[in-house]
């Protein structure tokens, strides 16, 4: 699994972009490349907005890239057209490349066990792998991601019986990866692991409800320069987010350097009575952050 999240996290620790060598299109496998990326990237979060960095990629090159990614992630498994199964909601032009809101919506009747989000042109393309547990309402999930340059995004649904369905969207954005997490690295780490949970609306027992989980974490991706030292801030990002309700799984998210600073995840779950929604997070430094939220008595 060339782009398995766990191994790419390790690759980051060991040698920065080394894990990315297999994608020859990424000319940022060395320091110089990183600096170039940093320069190109400074875009999204700066209010003085320049045109996004358009690549010279033509359609054929993009298709080729996706083919390679598909092979790396799914091997020889057939990937079907996702029409009527999965929809990917993303702005065609992002307002802030460091914070691109993404919606993953399941529209069919087939039971889905997992969803993948691939940002083809990002340094680490597999941005998220979500598996759903028995307490999930998987129909709608929202994330915020960084986008490094004009790219196709692919969302793939995996059914319980192992079939894959894909949909794609082209997103014009650039610079999200090197946009600084804040003006001060230490400041950004101060609050790390703080969480907030908000239930979006009232619920009744056994009926699905959406919830918003906010996590303070700089999600340093190794492409952000510390302005004072001029060194790149070492990567430190959330690798896994596990959410349970009454100790039964809602979802498990494996993520990578593409999640935005201070990630916000909107997800659905099905509460039956008042109970505890627990969140367990592990980052690339193997630091863990846990929080338990009381979900009140359902409305009757």
């Amino acid at each position: 699994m060339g782009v398995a999240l766990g191994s790419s996290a390790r690759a980051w620790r060991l040698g920065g972009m080394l894990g990315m060598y297999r994608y020859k299109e990424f000319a940022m496998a060395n320091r110089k490349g990183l600096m170039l990326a940093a320069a190109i990237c400074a875009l999204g979060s700066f209010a003085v907005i320049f045109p996004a960095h358009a690549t010279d990629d033509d359609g054929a090159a993009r298709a080729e890239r996706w083919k390679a990614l598909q092979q790396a992630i799914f091997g020889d498994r057939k990937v079907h057209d996702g029409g009527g199964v999965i929809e990917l909601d993303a702005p065609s032009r992002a307002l802030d490349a460091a914070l691109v809101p993404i919606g993953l919506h399941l529209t069919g009747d087939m039971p889905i066990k997992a969803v993948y989000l691939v940002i083809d042109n990002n340094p680490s393309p597999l941005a998220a792998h979500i598996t759903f547990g028995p307490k999930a309402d998987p129909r709608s999930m929202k994330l915020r991601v960084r986008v490094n340059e004009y790219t196709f995004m692919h969302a793939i649904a995996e059914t319980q019986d192992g079939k894959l369905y894909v949909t794609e969207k082209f997103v014009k954005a650039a610079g999200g990866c090197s946009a600084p997490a804040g003006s001060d690295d230490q400041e950004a780490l101060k609050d790390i692991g703080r969480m907030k949970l908000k239930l979006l609306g009232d619920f009744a027992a056994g009926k699905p409800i959406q919830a918003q989980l906010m996590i303070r974490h700089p999600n340093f991706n190794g492409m952000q320069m510390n302005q004072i030292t001029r060194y790149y801030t070492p990567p430190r990002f959330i690798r896994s987010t596990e959410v349970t309700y009454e100790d039964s799984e809602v979802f498990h998210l494996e993520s990578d350097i593409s999640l935005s600073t201070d990630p916000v995840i909107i997800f659905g779950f099905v509460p039956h009575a008042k109970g505890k929604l627990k969140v367990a997070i592990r980052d690339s430094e193997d630091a863990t952050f846990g929080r338990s939220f009381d979900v009140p008595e359902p409305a009757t």
Partner: protein
Amino acid sequence: MVGAPLLSRRDVLLGGGCLCCLPGFAASADSSTGAFATEEIAPGIHIRRGADEVATARNAGGIANIGFILGREAVAVADPGGSLSDGARLRETIRQVTKLPICYVILSHVHPDHIFGADAFEQDKPTFVGHTRLPYALAQRGEYYRGRLDQILGKGKAGPVVVPTMLVSDRAEIDLGGRVLSLTAHPTAHTDCDLSVSDRQTGTLLPADLLFVRHVPSLDGSITGWLKELAALKALPAKRAVPGHGPAQVSWPSGAADLERYLDVLLRETRQAVAKGMEIGEAVQVVAQSERGKWALFDEYHGHNVTKAFKELEWE
């Protein structure tokens, strides 16, 4: 090789002022050499009104309000402009007015439309003055801005990144001979490195991009911080102010009313969107839409402002 890239207004957002409102400017915008028209808005304070446009090869980045202040012994430049040629033309304009040495070049904040003309004044060996956080901001973004300006304006038109040699962390004064300018380094507001200038002698405030008039504001710092700093600026005993974008001068503090209304609406409606559990993408569609039509370049900046405000306010 990028020739003369054709960039849509939506694509290239640098900030600007309304060209169409100023007769005579449009003609001069085409040429990139020679002195340009300035207005003496108060005795010894000369302002070039920037175009309400985004930076293009045609306007050579001359989109911010920039100018100079004359003392008895020295000249201070308050913002050197958006490109090497913008700065050079400002210098020529100064030389038509006075032979006094240009001793100070004030860099109001990190945005390129204000400071990339600085190198045109290198020959004068001035003191380059900036906010104490400006060097960090330049380290972060300077080369990136320059690279983009190379593509937009043409290679080498931007000039090198000039780092301030005099840093202001709170307040400072510079003496031009019979005229003392007060400098204030602000906490995070429009950006995290805003420096304002005030001239007590004429009651003139130069807040640069802490004040936008007609041209939609661009938020790159903190919405709550900006409102706070704006309130403090309004309390200053100034009669007039020079917006960073918009007319060359407005009366003060009444000239802050539109900006304050915009920021208030943005703050209030973004907070409401957060409280309703909206995601950023939805908030961008609905927040402060009542302001559309009241500002030039609204569509170019507003969505980004909402995103920025949302990120700040959702953790309150």
